[in-house]
């Protein structure tokens, strides 16, 4: 873990670590919530398209998209956990150097 007491909050290394985490957090949050809201609101305006068969199958397009968004949530969660773990490891190494 990085050293941090009252004065060191302006430390550039800590600032960089904070910025990196903040960027990842908001990119992923906005992405997943945006995709979900866009899918839900579009359904209000394009119900016939959502009910239409997906790629000629009986599976409705709206439901196929819902499955894809569940998959995207899981994928983003897995990547996020790995990335922040790596940030933490880098920060630890940076400090012991």
């Amino acid at each position: 873990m990085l050293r941090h007491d009252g004065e060191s909050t302006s430390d550039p290394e800590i600032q960089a670590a904070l910025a990196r985490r903040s960027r990842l957090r908001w990119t992923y949050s906005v992405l997943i919530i945006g995709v979900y809201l866009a899918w839900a609101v579009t359904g209000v305006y394009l119900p016939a398209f959502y009910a239409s068969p997906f790629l000629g199958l009986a599976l409705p397009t709206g439901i196929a998209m819902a499955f894809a968004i569940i998959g995207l949530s899981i994928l983003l969660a897995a990547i996020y956990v790995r990335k922040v773990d790596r940030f933490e490891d880098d920060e630890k190494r940076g400090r012991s150097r």
Partner: protein
Amino acid sequence: MSGDGTNLTAIAVFIGFVAVSLAVTWWAARRTHSTDEFYTAGSKITGMQNGLALAGDFMSAATFLGLTGLVFIGGSDAAIFTLGVTVSWAFLLFAFADRMRNLGRYTFADIVAYRLQPERLRVLVAVGTLTVAIPYLIAQMVGAGLLIETLFNIPYFGAVIIVGTLMTVYVAFGGMLATTWVQVIKAVLLLSGGTVLLILALSNFGYSLDGLFTRAAELHPRGVGIFRPGGLYDDPISVVSLALAFICGTAGLPHVLMRFFTVPDAREARRSIGYAVLIIGFFQFAILLIGFAAIGLLIGQGDYVDEAGRISGGANMVSVYLARVVGGEVFFGLISAVAFATILAVVAGILLSASAAVAHDFYARVVRKGNISDSEEVRVSRYATVAIGATAIGLSMFFKSMNVGILSTIALAIAASVNFPALFLALFWSGLTTRGAVAGSITGLVTVVVLTILSPVIWVNALGNQTPIFPYAYPTLFSVSAAFIVTILVSKSDLSARAEQEREAFAAQLVKSELG
């Protein structure tokens, strides 16, 4: 359900679950002496275990029984719910996991109070916790009572007393350790039961999704119309409000937030929510398919659902009927017992968060101002658990006829409007002051309660008026916005010296919250 006697498998599995859970409680009680152990199981739960327990907290009877029934009735519209659940957990991971774990100790009040005036905020958060926990607890217990009445032929009052007593025993004696393990066992049971149900249902369509959806459209009275969104919600404001209830509500549920503190560090906290997203995502995927499969397999089966799609015993019974049709009496008994175990585990988690709010946030920190010994605080928590458990049993007797879905949605909307804005701004906005947080939370509470009463669900359906005064089913879009706006305006206009210190303290909180 023909009501012809009781199902032996259901009783055997249920008694087995109760026996194992009581053994776990006995084991946990011998390891629960300090407040750390009582509230957070000594923060020694692993990421995987906590992930299962978190998923278990959220896979309540409302999701397993209620959502399957909702797919049956509402078709594609139900996907807004199932997707909302999954997305809200991913958001919880990205936005909250690290900061919550690094700043908190027992309850989420620890975080809101971190740099603000602790006493006023703890009272506020304790009230916020109870206004969410009590309706949620009653909703689950009423649901449990009705389910047991139908499945086991035990009278409603007896069923509520059994559920209430068991949950009180788990929490009062075993604290967080027992609650966690009961939740883990139930999550494994529910996941395996749900998966087997899905596979058995799919086998009826030759494992073809194409066959499943074709058959559902053939049988449902609305035909392919069941795949069109808009049956339940046809305006964008209702849809966005509902979506917000999930995203902000999940991140404001006290029993979910409390689980962040049961793991040793931020890394395990992230891991546990990562597992929870995976488990919940899979389960919501299964529920969508099980719901559509139920349409294809139950409609026209005279005993359960008539040609017009009316379900005997109500929509909550869809998954248990499906279990009987695809798996016979034994599997039906198994799924019924699992549904009951689900409720039991969920109410235990909620009860623990409510008793922590009363004993830790209110009594130990505000009334006694922290001058309380560890063993005395644990004793007070146990008394609080028994008192709240007894209150919940009593209230459940009065609310038998209340719609369970309405109660739990109200609880989620309150969590989104009261707890979420204060917590979110405490974590991310340096400008937050005590005055702002208090004003915003009260605004959120008043707005959500008033709008819910004036909305179609209560004003028209429950009170019998002709037209609703507030036209939308879900108030969250308005109540959450109101809470945020008032918090920000009051914080900005607060020019006191105390407010200035609170703003300055954010920099140190930021570093601690991110880097531990």
